[in-house]
């Protein structure tokens, strides 16, 4: 018997779902607010949570990661009255099992619940988990745990994998980890840097060639696809693969057979493909720069690696891990990281992701000399300046915002001034809106033309509470 929690401010929905869950032979409980729901989740052992997005005391999507982090790691089925593609994407990326729009169909809800419980059961009865080899991949955030789950799934099969993510998120490390944890680990992991190969070399490098196949081919050459036989072929920056080669590679992917340039015989290669890109391949398909049939094949299994700014909770662990490693490598004494140093790292946006963080730690180590403890002053100036500017623009002191008609002694930058003024105006508008509608959210949404979730988000941002 499974335990199911329903978090929805509509009592009729709660009753309807409770009856449905009961008829299926499971236990149901419900709460009408997010606050109570979170208390239930943290104290209970729920298998599945039905979660409404627009709640009177917050947005369900914002607490979804916390629910997934609960000790029972419940599956979450999002139910919403105002479905939108962005919300659906956010929900799935945050680990939701399903995203269902109201009005709810009993059939659809039953199916979703059955499937989530099936998955949970299989997960529970599966082979005992073994420690994953994941050299250089650091983090224990919910986002990274979800990635490790995918990594384990990918490693246990031979399916083609597409890893996406911004530059510096660790795509190659994940590709290597998939290989290291797979049955192919004792064979070659062959890296093909598609961005580094000149167009005229790609085909011969991938497929190999016979002697005399083209001008300059004075010796036969075994291609990388064959070198990956029994192992893993990693196509890094796959978006850079020339269109002409994409067609040939698609066939290799389908048949695992190909003919080296100038050869009359086809040869086989039992390779497993992992590809990675920071490009938007869908846009490239639309622009005619990437084949949709190849993309379809690559997408058999996808992993999207999170930006570092999406998992700031991991920054401390990454910084400490790499600082210890770098100190060891550079044979310097161990250096301590002050709380202020870590705070600055956590506040920075890291556009270059983990790679930028690691490079920064290395720079800091190089410039800190014999200092045993690192402080923010040891960080590169550009990082400290960015953090300082962001802290000013995020929290403008109310009295320091210069009114347009008031003389000012020290002008802020135009950008900061504009942001502060816009924020003030937005807050004033929301206060007037609620006053005018007497806190009627539906009416406020109609007048403002905001969705409920967006309105709640803005109210939360400006710390405006609604009575009741």
């Amino acid at each position: 018997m499974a335990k199911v929690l329903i978090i929805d401010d509509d009592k009729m929905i709660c009753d309807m779902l409770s009856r449905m869950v009961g008829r299926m032979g499971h236990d149901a409980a419900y709460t009408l607010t997010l606050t109570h729901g979170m208390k239930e989740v943290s104290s209970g052992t729920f298998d599945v949570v039905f979660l409404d997005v627009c709640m009177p005391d917050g947005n369900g999507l914002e607490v979804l990661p916390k629910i997934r982090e609960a000790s029972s790691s419940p599956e979450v089925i999002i139910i919403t009255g105002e479905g939108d593609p962005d919300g659906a994407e956010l929900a799935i990326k945050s680990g939701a099992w399903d995203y269902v729009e109201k009005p709810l169909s009993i059939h659809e809800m039953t199916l979703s619940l059955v499937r989530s419980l099936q998955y949970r059961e299989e997960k529970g009865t599966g082979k005992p988990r073994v420690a994953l080899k994941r050299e250089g991949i650091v983090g224990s955030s919910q986002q990274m745990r979800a990635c490790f789950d995918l990594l384990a799934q990918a490693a246990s099969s031979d399916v083609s994998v597409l890893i996406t993510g911004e530059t510096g998120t660790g795509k190659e490390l994940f590709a290597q980890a998939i290989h290291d944890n797979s049955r192919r680990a004792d064979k070659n992991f062959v890296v093909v840097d598609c961005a580094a190969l000149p167009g005229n070399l790609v085909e011969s490098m991938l497929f190999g060639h016979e002697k005399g196949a083209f001008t300059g081919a004075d010796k036969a050459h075994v291609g990388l696809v064959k070198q990956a036989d029994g192992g893993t072929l990693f196509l890094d920056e796959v978006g850079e693969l020339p269109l002409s080669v994409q067609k040939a590679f698609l066939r290799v992917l389908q048949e695992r057979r190909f003919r080296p340039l100038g050869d009359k015989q086809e040869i086989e290669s039992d390779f497993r493909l992992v590809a990675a890109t920071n490009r938007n391949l869908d846009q490239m398909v639309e622009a005619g720069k990437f084949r949709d049939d190849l993309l379809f094949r690559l997408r058999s299994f996808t992993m999207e690696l999170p930006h570092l700014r999406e998992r700031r909770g991991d920054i401390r662990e990454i910084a400490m891990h790499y600082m210890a490693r770098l100190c060891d490598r550079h044979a310097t004494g161990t250096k301590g990281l002050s709380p202020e140093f870590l705070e600055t790292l956590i506040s920075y946006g890291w556009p270059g992701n983990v790679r930028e963080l690691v490079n920064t730690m290395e720079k800091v180590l190089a410039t800190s000399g014999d200092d045993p403890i690192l402080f923010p002053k040891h960080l590169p100036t550009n990082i400290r300046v960015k953090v300082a500017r962001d802290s000013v623009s995020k929290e403008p002191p109310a009295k320091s915002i210069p009114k347009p008609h008031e003389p000012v002694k020290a002008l802020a930058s135009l950008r900061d001034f504009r942001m502060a003024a816009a924020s003030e105006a937005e807050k004033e508008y929301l206060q007037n809106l609620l006053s005018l509608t007497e806190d009627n959210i539906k009416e406020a949404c109609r007048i403002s033309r905001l969705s409920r979730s967006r309105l709640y988000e803005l109210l939360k941002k400006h710390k405006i509470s609604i009575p009741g």
Partner: protein
Amino acid sequence: MNLIFYSRDTEAIGDQLQRVIESIETQAINEVELHRTIDSLSRRLRRPTYDVAVAVLLAATKEDLLDMLSIRDLIRNLRIILVLPDTEDATIAQGHSLRPRFLTYADSNFAEVAGVLNKMLGNTEG
């Protein structure tokens, strides 16, 4: 950014590869750092490498390759172009364990190394 070139071989192959590297015309590289011994390379890699755009490593013999494997943990942090001494399966497997971005052989004319270096140095952000 700098380019690291490791070559214990001072004979024809090493010289030929060095000429290829030095013929690359790019503003992306400030300096080519030449290392003739594995100890020298190892010491260099124990210093910060955030300013290293790419490393070209020539294993003219199997012993050279074994030397490189002995400092694999230092080398794997770099973008490397690796030149292997032969095309035996075991040699190629050892080469791939260093995760090179491009792999070629000592008996080639290195024209493709020039092409790859040119492309890489125009794409140093990776």
